């Protein structure tokens, strides 16, 4: 089964709620991931601010961070391999990785029609 890991940057907060701007993109990603997790898929999400250990100890993440700096975040690892840098996966990508129908993810959130 696919294993997804998302390494977030150290933003003020992950919703952007008390950050400089509201980021509906983050809300979209968070709820899509919630939904998939609820289905029993293996998804891990880390915040650089809270769990820097994971960033240091994961050789792939550590290497990319050292080479490219914080702009590489958010970094998406699928089965341990970096699959996206500096951008969150679309619902379609998530759906294809986990073999579900993207429409399920869309239907869940009428408010974020951003992609």
């Amino acid at each position, binding site marked *: 089964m696919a294993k997804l890991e998302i390494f*977030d*940057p*150290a*933003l*003020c*907060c*992950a*919703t*952007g*709620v*008390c*950050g*400089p*701007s*509201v*980021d*509906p*993109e*983050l*809300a979209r*990603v*968070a*709820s899509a*991931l*919630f939904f998939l*997790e609820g289905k029993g898929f293996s998804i891990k*999400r880390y*915040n*650089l*601010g*809270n769990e*820097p250990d994971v*960033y*240091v100890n994961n050789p792939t993440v*550590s290497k990319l*961070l*050292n080479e490219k*700096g*914080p*702009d590489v975040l958010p970094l998406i690892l699928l089965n341990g391999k970096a699959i996206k840098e*500096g*951008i969150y996966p679309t619902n379609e990508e998530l759906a294809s990785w986990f073999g579900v129908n993207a429409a399920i993810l869309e239907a*869940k*959130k*009428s*408010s*974020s029609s*951003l992609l």
Partner: protein
Amino acid sequence: MLKRFDPAEITMTPFMFFTGKGGVGKTSTASALAITLADQGKKVLIVSTDPASNLQDVFKTELTNNISAIPDVNGLFACNLDPEEAARAYRERTIGPYRGKLPESVVQTMEEQLSGACTVEIAAFDEFTNLLANPEIHEEYDHIIFDTAPTGHTLRLLQLPAAWTDFLNESTHGASCLGPLSGLSAKKDLYANSLGALSDREKTTLILVSRPEASALAEADRASNELCDTGIKRQLVLINGVLKNELKGDSISEAFYRKQQKALCAIPAKLAELPLYAVPLIAGSLTGPQSLRKLFTKNQSESGIAQEKDRIEIPSLQAVLDDLHESNKNVIFTMGKGGVGKTTAASAIAVGLAEKGKRVHLTTTDPASHLTHIFGNEHSFGNLTISSIDPKYEVEKYRKEVLSRVSAELDEEAIAYIKEDLESPCTEEIAVFRAFAEVVARAKEEVVVIDTAPTGHTLLLLDAAHSYHKELERSTGEVPESVKELLPKLRNNKETEVVIVTLPEATPVFEAVRLQEDLKRADISPKWWVINQSFYALDTEDPILRGKAAYEKEWILKVKNELAKDLAVIPWLEDEQIGYSELLKIYEKKG
């Protein structure tokens, strides 16, 4: 007539929290109460959580975060918990191990995330907790007196079950305010005990310290309501610095007395329902147990201090105005803590520049009613136009924007959590800053004067998000164009000036120092400091007001010699400067 505060008439609870904005005399009154209780044979601990605490000066004793005995007072112990230091320590614990392991640029993004006001607030509460919930400590003392109290925002955050559930770790719906807490869930029970003690009437009293001034009383009213809502019901109010009698025939003394009495008559209704007590104005500073003992006793000697013969000459606001005019600054912020007179300074600068022939736009964060109070319903006076930004409205707009996006997707607990996060000081600052940016962007051909400035933390966050979103090249959640334009403008000292406004007293000066340091982190160096409401330059025979003036000198000199590139002083004025022509009078008075 207000009743004079007499500690003998008050039931003393084991915990007493003093609260009030900077400069109202929290530390003096808290220390005086601590000494009074110790003199009665009680064992008392006084705790300061102010990073720039003057508790050390008050007791003339070096204080650390370890409890130590105060030499001259039997039974009195003190410690100084510095929440900024605690926040720094927390940051270092979190980040330190990664220096060298992660690139410096990455470490910096982590640091900024943990540099907000909320981190410091939570760190302060964490410091309180050890004293409130640790039986070994609170059983040893009859009374523990804190010279500051947690904010309503902090208490509400901690009361939310969501703060302690796994959803914080499992999802990214987490929030910055709880950043410092996420590693502390082991302390959940300890925090619950602390909150329990705070809301127990038998255990905790909140002492609201205020001044006989309209803005200070309004602030005390707000704090009272907010903390009452979070469960701290036992409250009383100390109105500090009340002038008992005017010196007849001395115009300054009479005016000062009149102004105080007027403010006391107009005390907010809800605040007036609490037990209210007056603490008299004392000439000079209160240091050492001997002088503090006098604060709550009936017989005060009023030793007069002679008017200084060779007063140092300090430039007036006119000097600030001339400099801003000649250097052609087109974005001017006035910055300072609430109640120091930012709005008046900003309004006076705006009016002054307009008189010099510039086209000026003044915008303020004071609720519209107050602006109307100054300028009436007019929004245009020759070269001057005025607009106002209502922080409540801006935050509400922002809240709605956020909640409408997430409410369909999150459970109730998570939504309550996000709602509380939206109450954070950072949120308000960001919402207001965005509104400022729009005003500045609109007014390209004018000088824009704004009565508040963003903190360095906000600027750095905006900057970080800016570069982050640039990478993303996406329109979602993007920092607005107007904000992006404003950031480099703010850093350009040819265009922008930040004027720091403060009062000639210990705490307001320390607070201003912190504001300045915070701005410097974001590469903004304020040039002008303006000291407002000064008695130093006034001629009065009133011994108490003279004493006040003598005390001010110390702070004026400190600002002049150590803190400000340039300093100007605005003398205390009886009348509020209402209206365009009244504002101009600030320049007429000799400063």
